[in-house]
């Protein structure tokens, strides 16, 4: 039974169109995940080998949880695409912060599913109460960064939800602080609610400038901020709460209007930690990431890679039906813990430290870096 990619995409789009608040239908999710697995198993030979080593084939896998998730490192080493890569319409690449020679590549043969997934859940988490807002984007436009999934995402949101007056503020020379300040002053005077969105490190950079120059804006009620992507050594590390108190201080946007998005090049869906959505749904837990109904996030025991119960920390693993042209299961390098309302993110996996006088890889690397610095 070789299903066509088109039929699968249609089924996934159908699920996405049922919206962000559809009842979680585990049977439907399971059925679609298994169809997707069968397709990806036959269409993607490195993935097939990966599964066969584990004795997992469409014939032996009966539940989505048995579908072998692929470690994100694999996107650097293998071509995980269900089709000839020359036919891809987009190739999103990881930033390659550790090794620029080795960037993970995620090929997309159509962006229809990606865009439907991203736009639907963005709307639910960031703009559930308005159709459009001016989007001030602390990020690069997609034509400048064609291999960045974040730039594509930001461009998509601007097209789909951007009101007049927004723009991208990262150009060739980096963050265009002066232009952003001038535009924010004008917006402040006009009393216009806006949405600022972009990379967390860009916010830190901008807020540092604000602090240095003692700049304070009082953006109109209903203004909001969405940041994403951690800090990756590009700005000083700032905990989430501290970042949002700086946002409140310098932009006048309260923390209950600050949304954190968790996305990865290797995924087609995004998770959100959104007080805006929580308030609307009457949820209580803070700092939890919610995945859309067409994805599931599980926490795996790092020793056995089996699913852990709520409350036990482990490795975050996503099953994303929108990942229709690569692999449905993605094993991240992030640590988290499952809670009743979502996933609490605990940070990136670091290497381990030895307990005594032996030395582990990371300690030795750290020593070398210190020595050469």
């Amino acid at each position: 039974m070789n299903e066509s990619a088109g039929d699968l995409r249609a089924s996934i789009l159908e699920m996405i169109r049922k919206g962000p608040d559809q009842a979680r239908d585990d049977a439907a999710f399971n059925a679609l995940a298994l169809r997707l697995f069968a397709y990806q198993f036959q269409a993607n030979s490195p993935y097939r080998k990966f599964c066969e080593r584990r004795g997992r084939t469409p014939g032996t896998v009966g539940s989505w949880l048995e579908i072998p998730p692929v470690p994100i490192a694999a996107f650097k080493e293998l071509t995980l695409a269900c089709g000839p890569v020359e036919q891809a319409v987009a190739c999103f690449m990881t930033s390659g912060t550790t090794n620029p020679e080795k960037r993970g590549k995620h090929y997309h043969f159509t962006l229809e599913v990606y865009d439907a997934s991203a736009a639907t859940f963005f709307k639910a988490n960031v703009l559930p109460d308005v159709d459009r807002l001016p989007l001030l984007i602390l990020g690069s436009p997609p034509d400048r960064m064609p291999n960045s999934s974040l730039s594509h995402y930001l461009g998509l949101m601007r097209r789909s939800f951007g009101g007049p007056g927004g723009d991208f503020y990262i150009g060739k020379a980096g963050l265009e602080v002066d232009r952003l300040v001038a535009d924010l002053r004008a917006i402040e005077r006009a009393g216009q609610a806006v949405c600022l969105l972009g990379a967390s490190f860009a916010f830190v950079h901008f807020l540092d400038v604000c602090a240095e120059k003692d700049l304070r804006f009082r953006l109109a009620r209903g203004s909001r901020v969405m940041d994403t992507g951690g800090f990756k050594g590009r700005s000083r590390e700032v905990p989430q709460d501290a970042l949002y108190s700086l946002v409140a201080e310098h932009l006048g946007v309260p923390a209950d209007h600050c949304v954190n998005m968790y996305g990865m090049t290797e995924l087609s869906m995004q998770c959100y930690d959104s007080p805006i959505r929580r308030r609307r749904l009457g949820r209580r837990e803070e700092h939890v990431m919610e995945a859309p109904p067409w994805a599931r996030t599980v926490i795996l025991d790092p020793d056995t890679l089996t699913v852990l119960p709520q409350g036990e920390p482990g490795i975050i693993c996503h099953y994303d039906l929108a990942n229709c042209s690569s692999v449905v299961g993605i094993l991240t390098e992030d640590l988290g813990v499952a809670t009743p309302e979502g996933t609490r993110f605990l940070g990136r996996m670091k290497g381990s430290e030895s307990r005594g006088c032996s030395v582990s890889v990371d300690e030795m690397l750290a020593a070398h870096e210190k020595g050469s610095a």
Partner: protein
Amino acid sequence: MTWRDESPRFLPYEVEGEAAGGQVSPLLVAKVAAHIWAARKAYLARLPVAEIVEILDRAVGLWLEAGSPWLEAASRRIAAVTPYCEAMVRAGIQRLLEGCRKDAMLALLEAELHDPGVLDAFRPRPGARGSHRATGPTLTTHIFSGNVPGLPAVSLTHGLLVKSANLGKPSSEEPVFPALFARSIAAVDPKLAAAVAVLPWAGGDTAVEAAAFKASEAVIAYGSDASIENIRGRVPGGVRFVGHGHRVSLAVVGREALDPGSLRDLAERLAYDVSLFDQQGCVSPHVIYVERGGAVPPEGLAEGLAEAMAAFEQAMPRGRLAVEEASAIQQARTEAELRELREEPVRLFGSPGGTAWTVIYEDDQTFVPSCLNRVVRVKPLADIGELPNLVRPISRYLQTVGAAMSRERRDRLAALLAPLGVCRVCSVGEMPHPPLSWHHDGGFNLLPLLTWTSIEE
């Protein structure tokens, strides 16, 4: 049963009450130091070294008797507080203490002092004029690590052989052994044990450690490079400091040792070296270099090693890991597996269903430090002559090299590696068990603690 309670302390009777339940304060440390200092002066300092050896040998003997309650209690309690399995703790401590008997202590004294009598009186020295006497520190502070249970016995033995009072700080990860060992000395000779105290304080508590170091003439510390440097910076001038920081070890198998008939034995020895104390010791190998051209290819040894690792796991299961430790193993496995899937010359052997053990064979010869907890790489060599260049990048960490090869080639290997800082070449299967008289990290054990006085004729 001869100890009073289950608390991981061993303190002079006079301050035991004060210490009960309370935070360790600088004042308490000063009082403890004063007591053991006085106890040393009254007894240990006057004891001939030969008698100290006898007493310590009897204490160690208590641990090695059939069904020893000391070994039993230590194994049970250490397994309860560390990740290590009880069978491994028992075997490891037993083997370590077997190496601390009278013969080993005498060999150590002989190796470093030639005439141990210099610790008791002025004696002539061969090749030196006049007569000479060696005096140990009045008081030595020991900062123990927790990775190798039993190891504090060695450090305390060094201190006692040079007639020093000893203040030990156990590791918070393994707080059990030092106090139990001190109690076993007390069971043999309470007056000698009165010069020993084991007091757990929070590592890096600068006020408490300042009080300890102020009372000391020597400080011996085990731990990470960072903690050694931290401690070194706080030891006052004039106080001797011996630090044992990060080290890595490796094994080398010569082609002549690659015989199908003895492959299993060789693999078992290597598995033992890798697996004991879950590779946390500085003597644990990270990489096994295997010469090509033997009757068994390096890949074949990797396969045999995998079987032996599985068998060792059956007998002595790897300990529980923290999330990050297990994740590090998963990442190492993933990296190897992906290269294997790309048909690079890599083979991954791993315990099914978990991270208990991992053997990675790869053609790439680069020395890659292990993420530990029983993860070892097997790499080929055309000839042992290639080794110096391969290990030069990590030479400042190099410590033990386990060698399976002919005696002549082992000697050649040692000559090649000595300039790179390797301080010990031993047989495979013996890597975790250096003799008491070894040159730990390339130096002496007793000599760094001693002050010499000479009478010129």
